[in-house]
């Protein structure tokens, strides 16, 4: 019971560990802030050199910080170099997190919650933070447990889940939902203003989608951002004329 309470408190504490996020040691201060009390409680003393490096550069996906903390503590307890393990595995877990949380879960929840809001209830928006937050806490909990038991083998276990393949499936589901959303958008627009030719409007929407894919493949991001702005302004000008300000 005492163990569960301490894990719960560690998870709550980890919600805030990025407080000192900066351009020099990134999340290093936060990692040291999480690790130091546990090291003290377990009676682990770091060498002077390692103690200095505890708060040095560290950057990973926030959902995997407890997994890295577990690996670090396990290595320290075994008399190995915990700092090296922390540094070596932070990038690997960052890549895992980017792949699962940023690339797969976030787009999926975005389109699912839009779908739910438009088709079911405005409360559908709650799905986004609840499910994402649920996965975040789940990974913090199991990551911490697994990390402190398996040590360096933790990454092997996580790799078995094949997060990259999840992302591939989720991507396809997202495109399917986009199709449903476009139809809903066209339905909304026809309720706002009567469209003379719904077929033409549908073709236009489809062409805009294909245009978007084409622009993604051919144009770089900064050019896209500038182009988008110019497109918005040009449309504004073309539709309404250039004389915006009047007396």
């Amino acid at each position: 019971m005492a163990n569960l309470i301490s894990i719960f408190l560690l998870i709550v504490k980890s919600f805030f560990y990025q407080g000192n996020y900066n351009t020099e040691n990134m999340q290093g201060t936060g990692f040291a802030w999480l690790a130091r009390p546990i090291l003290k409680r377990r009676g682990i003393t770091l060498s002077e050199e390692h103690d200095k490096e505890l708060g040095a550069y560290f950057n990973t996906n926030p959902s995997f910080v407890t997994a890295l903390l577990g690996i670090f503590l396990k290595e320290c307890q075994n008399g190995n170099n915990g700092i090296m393990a922390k540094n070596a595995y932070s990038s690997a877990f960052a890549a895992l997190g980017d792949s699962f949380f940023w690339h797969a879960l976030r787009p999926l929840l975005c389109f699912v919650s839009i779908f739910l809001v438009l088709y079911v209830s405005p409360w559908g928006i709650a799905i986004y933070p609840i499910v994402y937050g649920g996965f975040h806490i789940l990974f913090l909990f199991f990551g911490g447990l697994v990390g402190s038991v398996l040590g360096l083998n933790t990454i092997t276990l996580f790799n078995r889940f094949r997060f990259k393949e999840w992302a591939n499936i989720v991507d396809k589901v997202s495109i399917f939902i986009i199709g449903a959303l476009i139809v809903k958008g066209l339905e909304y627009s026809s309720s706002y203003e009567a469209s003379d030719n719904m077929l033409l409007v549908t073709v236009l929407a489809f062409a805009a989608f294909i245009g978007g894919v084409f622009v993604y493949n051919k144009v770089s991001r900064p050019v896209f951002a500038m182009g988008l702005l110019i497109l918005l302004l040009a449309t504004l000008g073309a539709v309404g004329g250039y004389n915006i300000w009047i007396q």
Partner: protein
Amino acid sequence: MELLLIPLAGLWSMDRSTAFNFMISRPLVVAAVIGGISGNFIWCFAGGILFEIIGLMDMPVGTRISRDSTFAAFVFAYVIAHLPVVTTEYCFFTLIIAYVLVFPATYSIVFTRWINKKLYQRSPHRESFLIWTGQAIAFARGVIVYAGGAVLISWLIEYAAGRLIVPSVSFLWLVIFFCFLAGYFSGFLTASMRLKIALLLLGGAFAWLIL
């Protein structure tokens, strides 16, 4: 109820940069909450969708700071919720202003990280102090930049309302714009072009025929 937006702005800023990581600061959620509190839900939500899709492609990988789409959604939703009469023209106008102002708002994140760096260099071992000061800075940034910025822009638009002719833009234009952004975003997703189009048409047919 409106005063609730001040602490929410602080919490959203924290969620975006220093705490929680629950995605309560996503443009979609921010716009929906403001729309729910202040009114004009569907318009706020429509703006939230557009900023969400732009934000989804902008991942904070490594040291990269993604553009502050939370700010854009906050400003857009606040302004739209407080317009006496909502028209597509003003939605579109506010959309452009919010999108342009994302860039200085993003710079405020760079600035807070610079302050954090200076604090860390001064006293690297006072971890608790550094963490909670950083949280307070992130909260203050939200209140100043999000809430303050939204009120200021709302005043500006209200001031300009009588003097400005905003051209006519239809809701359909916003939908077409969404389609374009969705297409751009789907380029970011992994599937062949043929499969993407097939899935898109399947999704459309599903919504049209069944829902």
